[in-house]
C-alpha cells in the first residue's frame, strides 16, 4: 500500500547551560506536515560542529564563533537567531579585590582557553590597560565545575565563571563576592549590549528546501525560550528529566540569572559583529580570519512575521 | 641416501679458531655410522651442519631426502602431551588420528604407552629420552641424525631399544649417523665407526665393523677386543 513519506529532521541541542532554553522541544517537538522532527542533545560544541560538517546536522546550536568558523570553512550555514547571551561573573574570595582595576598582580582562573569568555575578558582587561601577559595571570587549568569546587573549598581566590556555575559557587561559600559587572564592562570596552554566546544555526539547504520545517522549528525554539524564562521551576524540572546535565533546583535558580533570549539574526548582527571583532583582534583564525559575509545572517522574513 | 661433505670450513661467530677446516666426509647409506670423539670436539656441530641449522663458511655439503634428528637434549614441547610430541613429524603427512595411532604403537614398544597423555615434565629423564627417540623413529626420513640417542637409559633397556632400532632399520633401510660416547654402543649398532679428533675436526679412526650379530654382544670376545682397540684410540685422542 501507500504510506505517507515524511522527511526526518533532527534538531540538535547541547547538554549543559546552552541547551536549557530549548528544553521545551523535548516535551513537544515541532510539528510540520511532511516532516518528522526529532530532538537530540550532544555533549559538546565541537561534536556539534562535527555533525554539521559531516552533513548529519541541518539545524542545531553552536557558540557564535564556531558558527562563524564553520561558515568560513565553506560550510553553507547561517545563523537564524541568537538564543543565549553571556552571563559571566567575576567571583572573588579576596576582599581586597572590589573592581577590575584591583586585578593587577593577581591570578584568575578562566576556563576554556580560546573560547568566548577568554576573549571577552581579555578585551575588558585591555580596556583597563591591564596586559593579560604581564599584569595578571590567567589560568586555564580547570574546567568550570572544578573552578566552582575550588572556589567553594577556598583553593583559589579569583575566577571568571558563567551561569549556572557562578550561582553554585556563590551558594556554596558565603565569603564569595561578585566583582563588577562583566556585561556592562563589555559594553564599555566597545561591545554592543550583552554579547551573544549561543546561536541557532541552520544549513542553507534546509532554509531553502524545507521552509515549512524551518518555520516550525524556529517558532518552537522561540516559544520554548519564552516559556523557559517565564517558568523557571517547570523548566528546571524538564532539564533534569531530559538529562541535560543540570539538576532541577540549580536550573530553576540559574534560569533567571542567565540570559536566554531569542534575537533573530538581522537584529543580532551588530552585537555578533562586535563579538567577532574581539576575536579578530586576539585570535582571528578562530572565526576564519574575517567577519562573516552577509548571507551568514539568515533572512528570516519568509519564516517570521 | 648419502651424505657428502667436502672441504668444509666452519667456526662459530666470535671465536678465533676454526672448528672445521678442510673437513671432508662421505657416508653411504643405508646403514649405521657411529661417530665418537672427545667432548667438545664438534660432533653436535657436525650434525647441525648436516641438518642445515648452521651454515658452513666454505665447502660443500649434500644430503638427500628428509631428515630426522634425535637431539642431544630431548627437546620436547612442554605444553604438548607425549603422544602429540611424538606424532608431530607425521602431522604434515597423515591424518591426526592415524598419526596418533602410529605414535601410540611406537610408545608401547618403548614401554611408555601409559604415559601417552602426560606432559613431558611428568616424565623421568630416561623416559623423555625415549620419547625423543620415538619421535625421530616415527618420521619417515631416509637420513637419521642421532646425538647420543641412548643416553640416560639403563643398560638392559638400552640393549632392548637398540634391538628395536635394528629391527626397524631392517624393515625400512635408512642412513643413520649416530654420535655416541660408548664404544660398546657403536660396536653393537654400527656398520662403520669413526673416531674424531678436534681442533680442527678430523677422523683418526675410520673402520667398517664386520662382526655378526652374536659377536656384537657385549659379552663376546670379539666385542671386547674391538672395544679395547677403540678405547686405546679414544684415550690417545683425548690426551
Amino acid at each position, binding site marked *: 500500500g501507500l504510506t505517507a513519506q515524511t522527511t526526518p529532521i533532527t534538531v540538535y541541542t547541547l*547538554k*549543559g547551560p546552552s541547551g536549557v532554553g530549548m528544553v521545551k522541544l523535548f516535551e513537544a517537538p515541532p510539528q510540520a506536515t511532511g516532516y518528522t522532527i526529532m530532538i537530540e542533545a*550532544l*555533549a*559538546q560544541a*565541537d*561534536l556539534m*560542529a*562535527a*555533525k554539521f*560538517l*559531516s552533513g*548529519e546536522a541541518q539545524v542545531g546550536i553552536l557558540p557564535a564563533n564556531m558558527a562563524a568558523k564553520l561558515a568560513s570553512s565553506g560550510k553553507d550555514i547561517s545563523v537564524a537567531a541568537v538564543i543565549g547571551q553571556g552571563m559571566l561573573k567575576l567571583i572573588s574570595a579576596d576582599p581586597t579585590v572590589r573592581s577590575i582595576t584591583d586585578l593587577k598582580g593577581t591570578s584568575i582562573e578562566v576556563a576554556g582557553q580560546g573560547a568566548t569568555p577568554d576573549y571577552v575578558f581579555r578585551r575588558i582587561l585591555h580596556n583597563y590597560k591591564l596586559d593579560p601577559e604581564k599584569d595578571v595571570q590567567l589560568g586555564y587549568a580547570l574546567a*568550570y*565545575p*572544578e573552578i*566552582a*569546587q*575550588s572556589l*567553594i*573549598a*577556598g*583553593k583559589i581566590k579569583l575566577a571568571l565563571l558563567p551561569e549556572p556555575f557562578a550561582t*553554585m559557587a556563590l551558594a*556554596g561559600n558565603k565569603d564569595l563576592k561578585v566583582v563588577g559587572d562583566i556585561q556592562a564592562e563589555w559594553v564599555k570596552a566597545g561591545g554592543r549590549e550583552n554579547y551573544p554566546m549561543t546561536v541557532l544555526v541552520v544549513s542553507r539547504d534546509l532554509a531553502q528546501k524545507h521552509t515549512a520545517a524551518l518555520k516550525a522549528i524556529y517558532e518552537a525554539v522561540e516559544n520554548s525560550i519564552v516559556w523557559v524564562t517565564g517558568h523557571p521551576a517547570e523548566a528546571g524540572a524538564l532539564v533534569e528529566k531530559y*538529562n541535560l*546535565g*543540570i*539538576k532541577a533546583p*540549580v536550573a530553576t535558580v540559574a534560569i533567571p540569572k542567565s540570559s536566554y533570549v531569542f534575537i533573530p539574526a538581522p537584529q543580532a548582527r551588530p552585537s555578533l559583529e562586535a563579538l567577532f571583532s574581539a576575536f579578530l583582534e586576539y585570535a582571528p583564525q578562530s572565526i576564519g580570519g574575517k567577519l562573516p559575509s552577509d548571507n551568514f545572517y539568515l533572512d528570516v522574513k519568509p519564516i517570521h512575521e | 641416501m648419502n651424505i657428502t661433505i667436502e672441504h668444509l670450513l666452519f667456526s662459530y661467530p666470535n671465536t678465533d679458531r676454526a672448528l672445521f677446516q678442510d673437513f671432508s666426509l662421505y657416508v653411504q647409506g643405508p646403514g649405521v655410522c657411529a661417530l665418537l670423539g672427545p667432548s667438545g670436539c664438534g660432533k653436535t656441530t657436525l650434525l647441525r651442519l648436516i*641438518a642445515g*641449522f648452521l651454515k658452513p663458511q666454505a665447502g660443500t655439503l649434500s644430503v638427500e631426502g*628428509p*631428515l*630426522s*634428528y634425535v*637431539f642431544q*637434549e630431548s*627437546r620436547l*614441547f612442554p*605444553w*604438548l602431551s607425549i603422544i602429540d610430541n611424538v606424532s*608431530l*613429524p607425521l*602431522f*604434515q603427512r597423515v591424518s591426526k588420528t592415524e598419526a596418533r595411532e602410529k605414535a601410540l604403537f611406537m610408545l608401547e614398544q618403548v614401554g611408555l604407552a601409559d604415559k601417552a597423555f602426560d*606432559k613431558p*615434565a611428568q616424565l623421568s629423564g630416561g623416559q623423555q629420552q625415549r620419547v625423543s627417540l620415538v619421535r625421530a623413529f616415527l*618420521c619417515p626420513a631416509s637420513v637419521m641424525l642421532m646425538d647420543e640417542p641412548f643416553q640416560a637409559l639403563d643398560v638392559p633397556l638400552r640393549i632392548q631399544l637398540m634391538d628395536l632400532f635394528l629391527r626397524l632399520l631392517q624393515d625400512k633401510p635408512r642412513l643413520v649417523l649416530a654420535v655416541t660416547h660408548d664404544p660398546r654402543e657403536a660396536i653393537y649398532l654400527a656398520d662403520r665407526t669413526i673416531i674424531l679428533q678436534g681442533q680442527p675436526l678430523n677422523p683418526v679412526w675410520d673402520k667398517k665393523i664386520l662382526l655378526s650379530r652374536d659377536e656384537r654382544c657385549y659379552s663376546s670376545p670379539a666385542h671386547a677386543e674391538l672395544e679395547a682397540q677403540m678405547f686405546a684410540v679414544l684415550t690417545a685422542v683425548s690426551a
Partner: protein
Amino acid sequence: MNKREFFWGIGGVFVLLVLWELGSRVLASDILLPDPRKTLVTLVGLIGTQKFMKALGMSLVRILISMTIAIPVSLLIGIPSALNWRIRAFMRPFFLVIAATPVLSIILIAFIWFGQERTPIFSAFLMMFPILTSNIMAGIQSADPKLREVLDLYNLSELQRLRYLYIPSLLPYMIAGLHSALSLCWKVVVAAEVIVQPRFALGTGMQMAKAQLETIELIAWTIATVIMAGLTESVFLAIKKLFMYREGAL
C-alpha cells in the same frame, strides 16, 4: 582467590579507606574529597537506581566489545609483524600512530564514524592494541629457538608452527598484556564516555555529577567503576587459572 587471599585483600581495602579518610580530613572539604562513609552511603543509594544499573551494564558491554575486537585484531597484526621483519618495519608507523595519537585529536572523526555509543570502544581499542601487540611480539620472540629447529626439521606448516610453538610461547605474555589492558580499559572507556556522553554510561553519570559539583556522587561513580574493574579482573583471573590448569602448567 582463596579465603586467605580474600582476607589480605580486605586488609588492602581497609588501608585504602584509612588513607582516603586521612586525605579527606587533610583537605577538609567535602567538595574536594568527601569522606568515605558518606560516599559509601551515596554509592549504596546509587546502586539501587535503574539509571545506575543501565550505565554499568552498557559500560561493561563496551569493555567486552572492545576486548573482543582488540584481541583478535592485535593477534592478527601482531603475529605476522613479530614473525617477519618486513611486516614489522612496515607496520611500525601504524603502531606508533595508534599508540601515540591522543584521542582528542581524532575525537571528531571518531564521533562522526562511530557515533556516541561506539567512540568509547574505539578509544579503548587505541589503548589496548599497543599493549597487546607489544606483548604478542615479545612473546613470539621468546619462543625457544631449539623448538623452532624441531619444527623446521619436520617441515611443519606456518599454521602448525603457530599452533604448536608460537601461540603457547606468547600466551604468558598475552595474559600479562590482557591483565593490564583490562584494568586500564575501564579508565579509558569512562574517559571517552565523559567526552561523548552516550545515553547510558558510567562516564555520562560522572560528568553529570561533576557538572553539578556533586563530588560525593562523582566518587561513588568512580568506586563503582573500580569495583567493576575488580570484578572483571576476577573473572579474568579465574579464566586464566582454569586455562593454566587445563594446559597442565599448574
